[in-house]
């Protein structure tokens, strides 16, 4: 079983559109499992019409809660809190949004007025789609531990992939380079980085590539909206050549992509230049994942 993770660094470059299209293409002759590792803003389900089979609660970390009856308003909790989460007053209180759950106040409170309480921080789901099972999640607004939830979703999806003897675990990643992205990347056989020919796209691509390299994950690049700027396209193409990074495709800007999203379909369901380029990209990715042996050390 191979694990392909779709990333971008910069948001909005087309990760989910590409993931949905690859799911459509891969499922034509392979058994696949899908995971949406963007737990803040999970969009893969909007294209794949999932039917939810299971719903589970995700308990994040614990947070501090002050018992008003026991609080002696000594202010020790505010002194030790480094997250600016304690609201002083006649009776002290902890801001549940700012609290990072470190329990420093719990250990220091002389009146033992603070309790650490587990938080229901989100939910995760198992669903069926026309291409294979989908594991996805929703982290409640403003919660911490998105990396932990991503790890959980991926772990469950991986187990399912082993049970189903699937060929491929396809993971739609979050934007950025921080904890949820690191969690999404872990264990990947290949990271496909979707970028666009803009100054921001090029800047963020470079950081995303460095992140993948940092964790020793092989990379490939897909250039979306490739006809937007010939100069930026040339710069990104040149960068990939210089650094020996395979560029597996260039998708032209095409309103058909948004139209497909509105219809809730992968862009490869209809013929067109974007669909053609994605088919070619998938064939190159398949070769990398399933045919080529990794280079000897």
């Amino acid at each position, binding site marked *: 079983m191979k694990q392909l993770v779709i990333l971008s*660094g*910069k*948001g*909005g*470059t087309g990760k989910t559109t590409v993931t949905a299209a690859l799911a459509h293409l891969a499922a034509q002759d392979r058994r696949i499992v899908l995971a949406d590792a963007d*737990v*803040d*803003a999970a*969009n893969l389900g*909007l294209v794949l019409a999932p039917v939810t089979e299971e719903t589970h609660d995700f308990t994040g*970390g*614990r947070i501090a809660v002050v018992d008003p009856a026991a609080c002696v308003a000594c202010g020790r909790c505010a002194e*030790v809190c*480094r*997250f600016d989460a304690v609201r002083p007053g006649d009776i002290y209180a902890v801001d549940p*949004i*700012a609290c*990072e759950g*470190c*329990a*420093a106040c719990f*250990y220091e409170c002389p009146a033992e007025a603070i309790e*650490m309480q587990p938080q229901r921080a989100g939910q995760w789901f198992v669903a069926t789609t026309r291409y294979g099972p989908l594991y996805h999640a929703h*982290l409640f*607004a*403003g*919660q*911490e531990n*998105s*990396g932990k939830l991503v790890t959980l979703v991926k772990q469950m999806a991986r187990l399912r992939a082993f049970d189903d003897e699937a060929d491929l675990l396809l993971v739609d990643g*979050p*934007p*950025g*380079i*921080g*904890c*949820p*992205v*690191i969690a999404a990347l872990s264990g990947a056989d290949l990271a496909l980085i979707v970028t*666009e*020919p*803009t*100054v*921001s796209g090029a*800047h*963020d691509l470079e*950081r995303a590539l*460095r*992140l993948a390299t*940092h*964790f020793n994950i092989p990379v490939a690049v897909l250039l979306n909206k490739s006809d*937007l*700027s010939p*100069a*930026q396209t040339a710069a990104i193409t040149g960068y990939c050549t210089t650094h020996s990074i395979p560029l597996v495709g260039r998708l032209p800007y095409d*309103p058909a992509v*948004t139209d497909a*999203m*509105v219809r*809730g379909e992968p862009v490869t369901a209809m013929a067109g230049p974007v669909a053609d380029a994605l088919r070619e990209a998938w064939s190159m990715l398949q070769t990398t994942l399933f045919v080529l042996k990794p280079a000897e050390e």
Partner: protein
Amino acid sequence: MKLSIASGKGGTGKTTVAVSLALSLASAAVSPLFLDCDVEEPNAALFLRPEISARRDVGLLIPVVDMARCTACGRCAAVCEYHAITVIGKQVLIFPELCHGCGSCTRQCPERAIHEELNVMGSLEKGITGASAVEFFQGTLNVGEAMAVPVIRQLKAWAIPPDVDDRPVILDAPPGTSCPVVETMRGADAALLVTEPTPFGLHDLRVAVEVARDELSLPVAVVINRDGVGDDGVDAYCAAEGLPILLRIPLERAIAEGIAHGASLVDIRPEYQSKLAELWKAIAELQ
């Protein structure tokens, strides 16, 4: 007023709006503060091109154990909620990437064998953008580091003086809705959410409204970017929720091409300068 500019979905135009808003508000009399809080992928400098005048390392204070005093009692590991310190036999192992820098292990060590040292996770920079007099600040998380929140927290503490008063403060948020976005929005006076009129844009706008309006009780207004694509779901949602749509930026190839090359919206379409100044006034009235 301190305004955070966020979106839920990435790539909707947060930085485009934030940069041009700062440029529109800047004048001989007013020097807005601009904070790029997307420390994982900071891009505003590509458009504002500030001259950087100061730089500093930031990170968290993490524990260092004096083994001469340590008795391997395990108290440090017992009080760590993040499993960032563990005791095996006579050895103490510290995992800096898990440590939140809360100081519990240091305070709780009965032998006072722990002190703290800065673990550098990123950097902060400040500067001024040329003639426009925008005071610019950005944080950058080092590649391979997981935690963005401490960098954002320290960026805000460094950039925003307590007596900021009436100076406009613009906070360009990262995408998403989890802790880095919340840290950016905390203490702001309002949130401006930039979206696009597509099913993805709508889905992620809803979650951004949950954070800004429902969790943080901020007044919220909306900008629709790439107006004309997709469907009318965002309009219907904003009408139903009573969210004011203060600006629409149409999908135009000339705008997209200009931004691809690092031009700002007000460079490409100067008429947005007055529209953005009006938008600022309209948000101030929402409070």
